[in-house]
């Protein structure tokens, strides 16, 4: 099961039997807009607070994922989820509505793959026949909690990122049709001393590179084992830094395709997102919506999704602390030849 130092190689690879993605208007306008299950035109989703809107995104994604798997929520034994808000209220409150036994996790924007890795472990070990992983984020709740009020007129620097409004959920099963989770690497916390919360890409890039290197080392493989390696939300700044770090550390990343979800979800030239997308939902909706659809269509065989998270709080950066970061990698293979 344990491979190397920090990787789980699943002997009974759990199957991703269904996924669901729900996004906001800006994501719907982006290049991947057609790949999402529900696109909301209204940021409030008809709710009276941003927080309730975010919770609604999660509830919709979770309900739809269970529906798509043709299951009832009673058969899904565990729900592993988390988000960016204080005390992960979006997922905890969504879990209240779903009333599925719930494990709340926090890994900032890496929560998408953290929850998927844990849910895979639960299913693979035989602790449940079905488990669900989910995460969500909302642009306005993130702005409100981490930065300024949404309508406040502050000028964002070109390194800033735009938090994705959306939610993604995946249902894992011991058997069934669909792509399988073959391995997961749990990352270490890496801190390179970056203190600027408007430059998350630069803070998170070393964590992503560290986890990818650990993954390749633990499994004894090269990057070309995968058709595609994607990082979660490094955006344009972090992506360039990561490419340079790979070169510096001698990782032959050029042998495969390497890209970043934060760059895929928006059209950077046309949408006002500065360096690109970020947030828990960024990697979740790109992976569950876009990438898994391409896998089911047979365009991709093996992918590695590396969700990156900045583990800061508004309090920690106001007190001048640097930004510790983490990345978790999950390897997914299309079920055909697995």
């Amino acid at each position: 099961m344990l491979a190397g130092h920090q990787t789980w190689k699943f002997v009974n690879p759990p199957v991703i039997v269904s996924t669901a993605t729900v996004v906001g208007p800006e994501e719907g306008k982006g290049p991947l807009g057609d790949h999402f299950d529900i696109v909301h035109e209204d940021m409030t989703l008809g709710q009276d607070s941003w927080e309730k809107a975010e919770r609604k995104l999660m509830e919709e994604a979770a309900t739809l994922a269970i529906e798509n798997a043709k299951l009832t929520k009673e058969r899904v034994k565990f729900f592993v989820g988390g988000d960016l808000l204080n005390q992960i209220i979006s997922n905890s409150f969504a879990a209240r509505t779903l009333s599925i036994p719930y494990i709340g996790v926090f890994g900032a924007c890496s929560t998408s793959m953290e929850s998927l890795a844990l849910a895979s472990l639960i299913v693979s070990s035989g602790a449940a026949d079905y488990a669900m992983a989910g995460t969500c984020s909302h642009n306005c709740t993130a702005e409100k909690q981490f930065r300024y009020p949404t309508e406040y007129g502050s000028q964002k620097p070109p390194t800033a990122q735009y938090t994705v409004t959306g939610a993604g959920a995946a249902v894992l099963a011991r058997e069934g049709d669909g792509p399988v989770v073959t391995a997961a690497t749990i990352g270490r916390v890496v801190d390179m001393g970056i203190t600027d919360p408007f430059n998350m890409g630069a803070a998170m890039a070393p964590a992503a590179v560290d986890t990818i290197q650990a993954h390749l080392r633990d499994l004894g493989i090269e990057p070309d084992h995968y058709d595609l390696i994607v990082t979660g939300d490094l955006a344009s700044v972090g992506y360039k830094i990561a490419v340079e770090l790979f070169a510096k550390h001698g990782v032959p990343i050029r042998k495969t395709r390497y890209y970043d979800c934060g760059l895929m979800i928006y059209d950077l030239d046309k949408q006002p997102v500065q360096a690109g997308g970020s947030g828990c939902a960024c990697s979740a909706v790109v992976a569950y919506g876009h990438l898994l659809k391409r896998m089911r269509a047979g365009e991709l065989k093996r992918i590695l999704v590396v969700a990156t998270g900045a583990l800061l709080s508004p309090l920690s950066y106001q007190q001048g602390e640097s930004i510790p970061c983490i990345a978790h990698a999950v390897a997914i293979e299309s079920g055909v030849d697995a």
Partner: protein
Amino acid sequence: MADQKKKKLTPVQQEYQEMAKRIEPPRPVWRNCLFAFLVGGFICLVGQALMQLFIRFGFTEKTASNPTVAVLIIISVILTSMGVYDKIAQWAGAGTAVPVTGFANSMCSAALEHQSEGYVLGVGSNMFKLAGPTIVFGTVAAFIVGIIHVIIYPGGH
């Protein structure tokens, strides 16, 4: 301060930060300065026009400033409530932040944002979240300048 922070970093961190700095796109400082100058100047021009208007309607040069500021604040609050002010500000930067419109925007946006937490704990306690420091340090600065004034001109004036 910055040097002190640098000293605490390990060599690996220092090396990384230098590399990251090289890759980061720099802030367009000159463009920002120019836009701030033009937009800020334009807002002041509108203010001056309003003031002349009020003087024409019988205000004196001294009393006309109050209704002028009030009109600018209302415009800013309306633009903030319509969700446009932040979009203009991304483009104009300090140009919309420095004049009185920026102050109005900071209070209005905070009040709007925290309305969901109720009028007392939400609007009441968060309205000055961004504007508060301006008031605190404005008062402190006025106090210090006042003391200096008293020392230099002990008899008043």
